[in-house]
């Protein structure tokens, strides 16, 4: 047993660095009571690593799974939100007299009616879609009717919805503190880019544009709230129950323990559901005022307009290289309009991380604009940055008449060039080799497929990816062996549709020696479950998995203590498999059920926690994707025929679910490359396509052949399960790979995504014009 005595320790609490979506945070961590020996590549595992159907699938295919909008409580009221129709200005008058008198209406809150810290309902409007008032009524239809009966007059002021207008001299003040975040560009430099460019044989200069993309989770943001005295229960569709708890407690001046947040099933998050929002506070405030439970779910237009987005970028990229492809300098200057709020999730980081290059300089200017604020969106910054960096790399290869795959191999870095440290593991070269073989690079092995028409052109392209996926503490778990020998994994995490319920049960079953069918994961309740952080940054497997494994080992140790006396042996002679404890090298054994039956109502609870990350090691997931496309030269329509994706994410806990995540990320990347773009009218300041018809996401008709594979292995240096994350790596290289394939097909690069027919035709026309 890898269990150390729990003696007094000089340093029970240490600090460690955790990277979340490119941001580094230093955190205090409690050292685990013992360190399980890592699962290495050679560990013989049977449940971990198996393609097991997700354990909550039956609930999903029968409609039994309960999502936040399915929550009902006795006497529950339903809230609707009124949103501002102007981009900037002030409320001149607000008249809710009629609205309050409509049938079914219970309460209405507008400017000045909510506690200050909820930041609800200002008289100042800073973007179109900003909540102005909310009504709760006996039905959703009655609440919506009342919203439309509120009469609001606005004094409209000049606004700035573009980066250019927000940063112009005498620009309207988007925020009173200034239009730049945080008043100066973010500049990161290593080496000497000027010298690097001077030493180059060739210099590529490009300006790339990426659009505002909307998460468009099928389940909108929503919450239900119910008070019992001064205790509040919130049901919320969220990626972070403990963060919602903190947000609500802070906004409503409640002790943390008085707020309970529950999340059972949720219909997607993709980064936009990382804390409480206006809907949460509206539900809580109206529930307090009415003494009833209140549910507040965004309608689709509210969801598309005001629940977060991936901000647009302009990236001015300069790359210098020697004739043989060796990079001498990378420079990237970016403009990023954030919306009314946001953080520095810009495109720069990947420019510093993906390649060996001594001289790298990036500048990002973030501007506040009069539009709904950005939120993290699957691979924030890296998705945008990968489009710029990888597109420029592909152009560099073209100009140098080098194979773009060879160019990447040539500039592979064995150490993290940003912080000059080793990687916990890096099999990017194996991804390149394996992916090229599957795809048939450089000549795809599908070219025998006939063209649909003579006006069609085919092309192939590729792009690479890096993403920080170390995860980290704090994360706690318990594994409970019940009286009937079933096993509960108790952990305050979330399953967004990722499969965390399933993979955590797999880790527990494997570690405990239990049959998987006896194990279930209980998640999503701040009151009864141990703390874990948000499910973001592709971190859940690497953050929570080790805590669950440790808790299962602890539970097994207790079970062995009990079984040893029943078997007249010592615990160190025991091993467990299939819920049976065997005395090693004998035929003496007991089932888990025989042991728990003997124990009566003794319940065994194993405890686990996530230890610190290894010091001074970069923990990343790597990968490459190859794309083959067909372009219609007459219509400009691009069809993606095939994507080959090969990634190195350490140990894969469940290949079936991992492939689903990969396919999902690739398809979101395909949408980002080809159709997805929020249109915000610069003269009106309002979103023109806040529906699922006008904001195009992929359908089954758009799905190419997708071939996903992972490099086998275990990253035992990253954590003792050997697993890293895959959710966000999946989407990062897709758009630049598709764009490269389109450039290959039509003979010219399209510098702005999405690659709509108009943009593709314009590029084709530019070639024709150049030829005269």
């Amino acid at each position, binding site marked *: 047993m890898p269990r150390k005595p729990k003696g007094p320790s000089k340093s029970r609490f240490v600090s460690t660095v955790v990277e979340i979506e490119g941001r580094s945070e230093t955190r205090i961590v409690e050292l685990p009571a013992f360190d399980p020996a890592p699962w290495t590549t050679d560990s013989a595992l049977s449940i971990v690593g198996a393609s097991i159907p997700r354990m909550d699938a039956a609930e999903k295919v029968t*409609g039994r799974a309960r999502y936040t909008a399915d929550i009902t409580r006795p006497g529950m009221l339903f809230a609707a939100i009124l949103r501002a129709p102007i981009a900037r200005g002030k409320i001149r008058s607000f008249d809710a007299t009629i609205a309050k008198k409509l049938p079914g209406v219970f309460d209405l809150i507008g400017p000045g009616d909510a506690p200050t810290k909820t930041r609800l309902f200002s008289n100042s409007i800073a973007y179109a879609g900003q909540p102005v008032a909310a009504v709760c009524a006996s039905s959703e239809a009655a609440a919506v009717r009342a919203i439309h009966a509120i009469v609001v007059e606005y004094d409209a002021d000049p606004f700035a919805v573009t980066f250019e207008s927000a940063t112009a001299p005498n620009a309207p003040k988007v925020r009173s503190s200034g239009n730049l975040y945080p008043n100066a560009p973010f500049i990161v430099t290593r080496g000497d880019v000027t010298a690097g460019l001077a030493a180059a044989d060739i210099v590529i200069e490009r300006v790339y544009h990426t659009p505002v993309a909307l998460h468009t989770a099928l389940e909108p943001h929503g919450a239900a709230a119910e008070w019992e005295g001064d205790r509040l229960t919130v049901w919320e569709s969220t990626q972070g129950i403990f963060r919602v708890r903190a947000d609500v407690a802070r906004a409503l001046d409640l002790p943390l323990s008085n707020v309970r947040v529950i999340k059972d099933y949720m219909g997607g998050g993709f980064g936009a559901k990382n804390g409480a929002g206006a809907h949460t506070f509206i539900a809580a405030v109206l529930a307090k005022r009415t003494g009833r439970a209140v549910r507040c779910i965004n309608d689709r237009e509210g969801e598309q307009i005001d629940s977060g987005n991936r901000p647009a970028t302009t990236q001015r990229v300069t790359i210098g290289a020697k004739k043989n492809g060796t990079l001498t300098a990378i420079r990237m200057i970016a403009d990023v309009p954030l919306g009314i709020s946001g953080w520095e999730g810009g495109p720069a980081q990947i420019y510093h991380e993906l390649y060996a290059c001594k001289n790298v300089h990036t500048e990002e200017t973030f501007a506040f604009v009069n539009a709904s604020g950005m939120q993290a969106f699957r691979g924030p910054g890296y998705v945008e940055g990968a489009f710029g960096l990888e597109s420029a790399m592909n152009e560099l290869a073209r100009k140098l008449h080098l194979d773009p795959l060879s160019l990447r191999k040539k500039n592979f870095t064995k150490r993290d060039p940003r912080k000059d440290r080793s990687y916990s593991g890096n099999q990017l070269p194996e991804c390149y080799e394996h992916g090229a073989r599957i795809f048939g690079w450089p000549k795809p092995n599908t070219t025998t497929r006939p063209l649909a028409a003579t006006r069609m052109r085919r092309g192939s392209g590729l792009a690479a990816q890096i993403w920080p996926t170390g995860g980290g503490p704090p994360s706690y778990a318990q594994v409970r062996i019940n009286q009937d020998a079933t096993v509960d994994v108790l952990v305050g995490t979330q399953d967004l549709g990722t499969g965390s319920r399933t993979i955590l049960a797999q880790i527990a079953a494997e570690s405990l020696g239990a049959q998987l069918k006896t194990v279930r994961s209980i998640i999503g309740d701040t009151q009864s479950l141990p703390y874990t952080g948000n499910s973001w940054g592709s971190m859940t497997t690497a953050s929570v998995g080790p805590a669950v494994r440790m808790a299962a080992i602890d539970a097994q140790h207790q079970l062995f203590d009990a079984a040893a006396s029943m078997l007249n042996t010592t615990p160190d002679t025991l091993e467990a498999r299939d819920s049976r404890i065997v005395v090693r090298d004998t035929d003496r054994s007991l089932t888990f059920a025989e042991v728990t039956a003997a124990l009566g109502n003794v319940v065994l609870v194993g405890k686990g926690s996530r230890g610190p990350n290894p010091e001074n090691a970069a923990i990343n997931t790597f990968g490459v994707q190859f794309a083959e496309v067909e372009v219609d030269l007459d219509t400009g329509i691009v069809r993606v025929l095939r994507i080959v994706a090969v990634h190195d994410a350490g140990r894969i806990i469940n290949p079936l679910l991992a492939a*689903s995540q990969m396919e999902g990320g690739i398809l979101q990347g395909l949408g980002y490359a080809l159709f997805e773009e929020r249109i915000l009218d610069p003269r009106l300041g309002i979103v023109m396509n806040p529906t*699922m018809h006008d904001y195009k996401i992929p359908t089954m008709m758009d799905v190419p052949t997708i071939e996903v594979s992972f490099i086998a292995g275990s990253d035992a240096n990253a954590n003792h399960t050997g697993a890293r994350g895959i959710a966000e790596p999946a989407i990062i290289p897709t758009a630049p790979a598709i764009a490269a394939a389109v450039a290959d097909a039509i003979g010219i690069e399209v510098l702005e995504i999405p690659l709509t027919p108009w943009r593709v035709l314009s590029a084709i026309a530019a070639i024709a014009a150049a030829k005269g």
Partner: protein
Amino acid sequence: MHLTVNGRVHELRPASAETLLESLRDSLALTGTKLVCDRGECGACTVLLDGEIVYACLTLSAACEGATVTTIEGIAEPDTLAPLQRAFIAHDAAQCGFCTPGQIVAAHALLAANPRPTDADIREAMSGNLCRCGTYPKIHTAIRAVANGEFRTDAP
């Protein structure tokens, strides 16, 4: 008015503007059918109305007098899940699961009308059901498997 839902007769008094989706979810507590776009763009509220697929969010309840409705809750067979449901589980054709009820009802209608669909038939029939998790390849595989005779209840 009377409405037969999943084989059970219900008496309803829908408001004039009440949609079938509201009646199912709010009056009958059949919450498997989901509200997503509320305007017939996404397919999450797909149900069968007298055997035809409809968007429940665009169907007025008052116009359904005497009709027979099948929702996701009525797709399973008496003692076991339907072949499509078992295929969706085995092939991991549900990620977050929010679109899944609509996907399964739409696939059910496809196979009822066209038991031997081509891949192009499946893509076209399912193209009105959006999935943001990108589960389409697995959904396609699951439908293909059922169309090929796998997952049948009477299969050995």
